[in-house]
């Protein structure tokens, strides 16, 4: 078995056992990542920065120096952290995000920063100021977004694993479109300190990995309360590596609201086949109702832009990032810096959010959306009294063509149809590859109640082993 065939967990085990050197592993991946970066348009454009050298040796800890790719929006001290935006071009943060710092403490080495949609706003990675990312399964297609660089890098074998963030599906949807595993933990499980904020009540960091075991391994290092993030939580138990092989007695609920209209036939076929496989492992499949789930997208596209319009007020050309030249006065400097520094989708969401929060419209939009959010959380609570997990396709389609949806914001937003409800409810959800449709990967989403990560990872692992998805053909 070659180095590139190892999962992150296997690589750490080999290094720990003295069968592989951490320096050799890092150099192999560094060279691969650097060649993608050097290839420009000919490559996948996964990275916005690649480590210039191997790190100093003697990385110890559980993760044994295994290289880690980190989404651009995580602050990394002295390393460019631009959140895919021109307004933060070249920004070198004075500190490192807690999630990244915890992975370093456990022995991970920073390999690269990954390309993303600007400020994590997008579902195709076409909104990056640093160019679109391409899908390693088909270069003419998108990798999904907003953690598109992280997903494509892992799928292509340019990084053993990667850190991403999910606000409405930004880990799960690109994981699905690239044929890898993506986990959005329960809101508050991982500290948001040092994550350049998009929508604070929804943003959550999580792993993009080759398999479920790697996702558990990464989450184990990251989870935990942080004094620097008042919304972070003490996870009630230690995250365990999954080991289940069967699903006996497990009740899986299929919500008709997220498995019918709007889902591509090939995606539904793969979904149904995966459910049959789950039944073969002993799971019981039943229908559940999430009556308000079809309204989740509407609520999300009020709440997330509203929070974004507030969070992005800090980019004003004063403390960091770019500034428009020769502005005659302060107000003009603000408005022109923001005009020049933000891309079209970010401007659209700032405008949408500002409108929804503005005088006269607050109750009709923001207030109502917050109430819909309550109803969605109640729907899930009610469903989880009947079933252990909810299962849906992760995304309504397989990877679509570059440029195919850029002209129609609403069509783009519909990519998050199946992932946004879980984000609004703050519950954990994982996407695993269920198979191929038209030669492209399809993702299966499993969602559970808050703090059910250990059970969720176990179930996903058992199903993953039974499905036996082989993603090796995407490695470049």
């Amino acid at each position: 078995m070659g180095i590139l065939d190892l999962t992150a967990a296997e690589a750490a085990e080999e290094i720990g056992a003295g069968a592989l050197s951490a320096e050799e592993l890092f150099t192999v991946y560094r060279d691969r990542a650097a060649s993608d970066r050097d290839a420009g348009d000919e490559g996948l454009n996964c990275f916005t920065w690649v480590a210039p050298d191997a790190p100093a040796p003697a990385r110890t800890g559980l993760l044994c120096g295994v290289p880690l790719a980190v989404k651009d929006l995580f602050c990394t001290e002295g390393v460019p952290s631009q959140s895919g935006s021109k307004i933060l071009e070249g920004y070198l943060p004075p500190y490192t995000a807690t999630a990244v710092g915890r992975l370093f403490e456990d022995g991970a080495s920073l390999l690269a920063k990954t390309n993303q949609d600007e400020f994590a706003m997008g579902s195709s990675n076409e909104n990056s100021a640093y160019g679109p990312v391409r899908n390693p399964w088909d270069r003419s297609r998108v990798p999904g977004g907003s953690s598109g660089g992280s997903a494509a890098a892992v799928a292509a074998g340019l990084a053993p694993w990667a850190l991403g963030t999910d606000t409405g599906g930004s880990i799960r949807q690109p994981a699905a479109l690239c044929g890898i595993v993506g986990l959005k933990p329960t809101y508050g499980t991982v500290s948001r300190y040092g994550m350049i904020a998009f929508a604070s009540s929804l943003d959550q960091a999580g792993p993009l990995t080759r398999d479920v075991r790697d996702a558990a391994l990464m989450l184990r290092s990251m989870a935990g309360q942080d004094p620097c993030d008042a919304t972070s939580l003490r996870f009630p138990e230690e995250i365990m590596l999954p080991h289940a092989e069967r699903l006996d007695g497990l009740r899986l609920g299929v919500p008709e609201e997220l498995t019918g209209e709007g889902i591509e036939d090939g995606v539904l076929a793969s979904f149904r086949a995966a459910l049959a496989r789950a039944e073969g492992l002993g799971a019981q499949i039943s229908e559940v109702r999430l009556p308000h789930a079809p309204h989740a997208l509407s609520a999300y596209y009020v709440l997330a832009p509203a929070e974004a319009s507030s969070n992005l007020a800090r980019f004003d050309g004063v403390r960091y990032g770019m500034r428009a030249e020769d502005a005659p006065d302060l107000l003009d400097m603000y408005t022109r810096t923001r005009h020049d520094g933000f891309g079209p989708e970010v401007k659209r969401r700032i405008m949408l959010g500002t409108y929804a929060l503005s005088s006269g419209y607050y109750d009709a939009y923001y207030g109502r959306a917050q109430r819909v959010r309550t109803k969605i959380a109640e729907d899930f609570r009610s469903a989880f009294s009947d079933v252990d997990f909810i299962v849906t396709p992760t995304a309504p389609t397989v990877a679509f063509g570059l440029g195919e949806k850029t002209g129609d914001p609403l069509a783009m937003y519909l990519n998050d149809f199946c992932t946004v409800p879980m984000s609004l409810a703050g519950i954990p959800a994982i996407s695993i590859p269920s198979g191929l449709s038209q030669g492209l990967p399809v993702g299966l989403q499993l969602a559970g109640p808050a703090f059910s990560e250990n059970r969720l990872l176990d179930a996903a692992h058992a199903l993953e082993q039974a499905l036996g998805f082989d993603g090796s053909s995407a490695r470049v």
Partner: protein
Amino acid sequence: MRATVISRDEVLHVARLARLALSDDEIEPMARELSAVLDHVATISSLDLDDVAPTSHVVEVTGGLREDVARPSLPREVALAQAPDASDEGFLVPSPQA
């Protein structure tokens, strides 16, 4: 239900609130795109939500205050290092009233 139509003036008003300059060729597409998204979002106005409490945050956080003790902060030169313009004393910006 009447379709939501955002006018050019409304776009300019919201852009002022957002401290965002828009070029002439950005205004009309912005009005059209905001109208389309708001139209879609308006489906939630058909729901009966009168007796529903709003959720601003899914996690109940109480007592999230840390102890009020002095600790080192970012050194001034580090805080100023990434600014587009700064003096030894602080951030430099154009005058509010040119």
